[in-house]
């Protein structure tokens, strides 16, 4: 066992990094690997990542190396109840993202032509429109690097390393969107990619400012130390300023209204795997950062700005729900739904009670699974439809492809927070937390927010049934599309089972995260 303990953590971090770099290099020098090769390699790496993530969460090994001695920055990796679920989610999503079929970006443009009815091959790795092998190897390399960066973000216990890892995912994600994104309009693609990069980069730079401030105040970059101090070394005024800066920076990533405008763009253009990783992992980094960098080290600051934060979150919930009622692009619609769900998460964090934190983490996991499911599904539909526009007439899924239809029903039910599916616990917990907020919160503001959020849940039901009515029900049978099968079907059922399991049996996950949240709330008193 000890060998495994010693190996698990390095394997977890290094596998995706090394394989990714190897793919990049092999792509540049000499004859690049064939698509099949790089794909299987990437999948193998992802499976290894998932496995070692499980081992790491189970055995809780640790690594502590000195990285930059002049700054006292340590490469201090470890798992606690807070980061464990995020690690598991990332491992799962690595597998999903590498396995999900690659749709050639150019084919979307071609399928977009009106009046094509014949279904297309879901996985064009053979035939004439094969992307250049080089590009495909780069694609998988980028996926793996994104995974590595997010794993490092969740694993590290040092603020600077956290920041570096946080940044590490930007460029590969940008390449994914700019190079492999929906090619129907090059201008849109580049615009979306640039939008993503600039928005998130600005956000993380603001986060850097906050980190520097905390660093200066505490004299260390050790996150666990920050949590112990719980802001005792900062004046409350400073706490507020730093908390605001950090929250703006992280809020761009989450995203919190009104900093959300980049998300629908990027999702609308990103390739399926990119959307999956973006929604299921990258956005989580923002929420995770809010807990790690704000809730734990700056309780007072958070308590002061909590009403504003919660207000923005609720505005985002309603805003996104309303936008979903009239959005015409299915992929953008799913992105909007993500904004709504993360609004619940942020509301729960702002509530600042133990229930709130539990609900926030649970909501993160649930949203990860649900959005991954929906994006895999919609990616397939978009590829077969040749566009994700809801306006143009489509065949009713229930008639022509029952399996896809069933998955859509499941996903939409989960998206509206139906009990028995994953989404419920997070949303209900957020409502409860907002109704009974933690210390230092103005009670009736938060109760108002709770009511507004409940109305937002109604909007969620409204857009869920809207989508079902436009895509799933109806009597049209043309243009016929092929039902899902093979790998994709496996992925969809895996995610579906996960959603169902999280919804029916929430105990284990809650127990996993309970100690960490308890500790965070327990240190509240230390600040004074």
């Amino acid at each position, binding site marked *: 066992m000890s060998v495994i303990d010693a190996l698990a953590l390095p394997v977890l971090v290094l596998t995706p990094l090394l394989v990714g770099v190897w793919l990049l290099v092999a792509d540049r020098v000499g004859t690049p690997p064939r698509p099949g090769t790089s794909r299987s390699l990437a999948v193998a790496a992802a499976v290894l990542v998932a496995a070692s993530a499980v081992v790491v969460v189970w055995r809780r090994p640790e690594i502590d190396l000195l990285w930059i001695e002049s700054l006292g920055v340590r490469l201090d990796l470890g798992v606690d109840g807070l980061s464990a679920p995020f690690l598991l989610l990332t491992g799962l999503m690595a597998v999903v993202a590498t396995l999900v079929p690659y749709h050639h970006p150019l084919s979307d443009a071609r399928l977009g032509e009106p009046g094509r009815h014949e279904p297309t091959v879901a996985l064009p790795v053979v035939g004439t429109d094969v992307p250049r092998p080089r590009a495909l190897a780069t694609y998988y390399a980028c996926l793996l690097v994104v995974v590595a960066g997010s794993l490092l973000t969740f694993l590290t216990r040092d603020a600077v390393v956290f920041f570096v890892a946080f940044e590490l995912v930007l460029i590969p994600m940008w390449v994914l969107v700019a190079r492999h994104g929906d090619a129907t309009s090059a201008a849109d693609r580049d615009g979306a990619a640039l939008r993503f990069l600039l928005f998130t980069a600005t956000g993380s730079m603001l986060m850097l400012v906050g980190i520097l401030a905390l660093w200066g105040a505490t004299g260390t970059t050790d996150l666990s130390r920050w949590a112990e101090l719980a802001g005792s070394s900062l004046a409350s005024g400073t706490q507020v300023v730093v908390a605001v800066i950090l929250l703006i920076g992280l809020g761009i990533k989450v995203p919190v209204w009104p900093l959300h405008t980049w998300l629908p763009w990027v999702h609308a253009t990103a390739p399926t795997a990119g959307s999956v990783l973006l929604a299921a992992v990258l956005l989580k980094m923002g929420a995770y950062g809010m807990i790690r960098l704000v809730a734990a080290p700056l309780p007072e600051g958070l308590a002061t700005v909590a009403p504003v934060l919660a207000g923005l979150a609720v505005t985002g919930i309603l805003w996104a729900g309303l936008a979903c009622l009239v959005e015409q692009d299915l992929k953008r619609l799913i992105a909007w739904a993500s904004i709504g769900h993360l609004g619940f998460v942020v509301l729960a964090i702002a509530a600042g009670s133990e229930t*709130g934190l539990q609900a926030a983490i649970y909501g993160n996991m649930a949203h990860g699974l649900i959005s991954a499911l929906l994006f895999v599904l919609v990616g397939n539909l978009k590829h077969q439809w040749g566009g994700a526009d809801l306006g143009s007439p489509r065949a009713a899924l229930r008639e022509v492809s029952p399996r896809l239809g069933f998955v859509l029903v499941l996903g939409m039910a989960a998206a509206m927070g139906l*009990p028995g599916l994953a989404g419920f616990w997070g949303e209900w917990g957020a*409502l*409860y937390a907002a109704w009974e907020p933690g210390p230092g919160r103005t009670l009736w503001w938060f109760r108002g927010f709770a009511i507004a959020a409940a109305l937002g849940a109604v909007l969620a*039901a409204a857009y869920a049934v809207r989508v079902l009515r436009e895509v799933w029900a109806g009597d049209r049978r043309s243009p016929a599309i092929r039902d899902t099968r093979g790998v994709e079907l496996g992925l969809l059922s895996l995610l579906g089972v996960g959603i169902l399991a999280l919804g029916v049996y*929430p105990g284990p996950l809650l127990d996993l995260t309970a100690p960490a949240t308890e500790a965070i709330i327990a240190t509240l008193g230390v600040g004074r």
Partner: protein
Amino acid sequence: MNDLLDLIGWPWPDWDLPSLPLPDLPDIPLPDLPVTAAQVMILLTATAGILGLAVGRRSSRPAAWVAVLSSGLVLLAAVWQLYAVYELGGQQVSGTVGPLALGELEAPLELSATRLSALVAAVVSLVALVVQVFARWYLWFDPRYRQFSATVSLFTAAMLLVVLSGDVLLTLIGWEVMGWCSFLLIGHLSVKDSANRAAVKALLVTRLADVGFVIGLIWLAAGAGSTSVEAIIEHWTGDSYAALGVAMCLVVVGVAGKSAQLPFQDWLPDAMEGPTPASALIHAATMVAAGTVVLAQLFPLLQAAGPARLLLAVLVSVTVVLAALLAFAQPDLKRLLAWSTVSQVGLMLAALTVVPGGTGPDVAIMHLLSHAWFKALLFLTVGWMGVLTGGTVVRYVASATKRYRSLRRPMGLGLLALAGVPPMVGFVSKELVLAQAEHGVQDGVGPAGTIVLAAVGASVPLTAAYCMRAWLILDRGPIQRLQRTPRRAQEHQIIDDFFDEPEVLEEAIGIEEAESAISSSARTAVALLGFCSVVGGILVFTPQLDLHVSINLQLLVAALLLMALAALAVWVVSRGVGSRDAAARLPIRVSLAAERGLGFDALYRAVVARPVVALAHGVQWLDREVLDGYVRGAGHAARLLGGALEHTHPRRPAPGLVLVLAGVLVLAVIGVVLT
């Protein structure tokens, strides 16, 4: 006159219900099983829901087996549970996936089967079984029978969860899942846009009302710091809180939504788009009745919360009368039943608001049970009839019971029970409600009592009226042939095998003797319901319900007289109308308005739907033009700045020098003067 009174011994004394002792049950020792009946019931139905989807892609037979067998087992479990609760003296608690680590909040998530909930659970599972059996016949040719039966199982599981829940979180779960399943069931024929619309409407209306329900329950739970019903009741009845009234009002709003009371009532008649078995399940035993169950569980809180009780009383009283009136004017028999459901559910809820101190919600539960029986009976029969006649509009169903003899008995029984004619179960439960209302008024439960008494009193003749109307239409004679040509007699075959596939529609059209038009199993199921609605009244004499109600005989006689008069009036009016439809005498405007449910649908659209969509468009515009405008603006600003500088920055040596010296000057000022 007086001697006449003396003769009949006026005034009669109140008559207390005798409670006849149960024949002492065979004393089976309770084995301590690892699972309780409650757990078994919910698990079975839920797994049946999932399994039903999985099995049998080719034929729907395995799915049927799964559905029917599981329902049968569940019924057995329910009976066993009745016995177990009786033995254990009132309550049996069992756990589920809880307790959850939700921080400050305790969430034990326990099931608790009490005397009443076990009873309701038994009836629910009975109706579910009947519906499953019937649906097997009704949806014989439906390629989506699997999905349907699975959804029904899931729906039953949700209802059982609500009934047996001892934890508001579990209640909420069952509540919402039921809503979603109803969406799927109503929209089962998803190629029909009207069905989709009805489904969406049902889901959204109830979901909107659920905001109140959710917030109310959260409020209650937050007060107690726990989601267990016991803890909540203990905490809130500890001493009087002002918040309790508001919280219970919110809960009542949610209940009104699910139970289709004013102002949410309009989703229910549209929901008739769903297949008849679904209607029988949703509108007889389960979803619309769930509100009654929940309020019965929270009964002490309702008693303690005056405002909530008043609100509930007003809502349901108006609903009871209004719905009864509308039911009378419906041109479609199924919609008539729908409106009558609204009215009857209102009656149950009314029974909760006028309970004198010290007694429980048993009367309401009793009415729930009886309504479950006779309404399920009526729906299934109407569905059966619809298959035979090709529709449930008055024009089709006229004199149906004459043409199809075997429809006569179930239909008659159902209508009698609905009208509350002795000795039907409907009569018993309705009289109990009436008596309790009167009792409550004397006991001084406040203004609510009077309103409710008036409404219930008014509902009695109205119910009788629309039942009479329906019966007259159905039983019109002499037979006039419709334009269909009758089939010859040798095509007439007996269906008795549950498994082979009869050509029901083709065979049945024009068959005068409808014996063969339905599979025997379905017919047995219907007959079972009929039996229940005849003899179900006996239940009130068992200790299973303890009713401290004493019947005021004058009131009883008055009610019976009113019923008779109403029926007579309808009969008189209907004479001379070709279709014997009394409602045909109504002015066309009235009947149209009634058919449209007084235009509540338009109201919903005008007040909720349109503003929301307009708001949504506004949001989309704001997001695109304003919020994102800032982003684009930033981009352009940077580029413009660059452009401006590009044009100004010197390309010659000399101006560069000017810049240098000016810079020095500025620096000197900053450096020397400012510091």
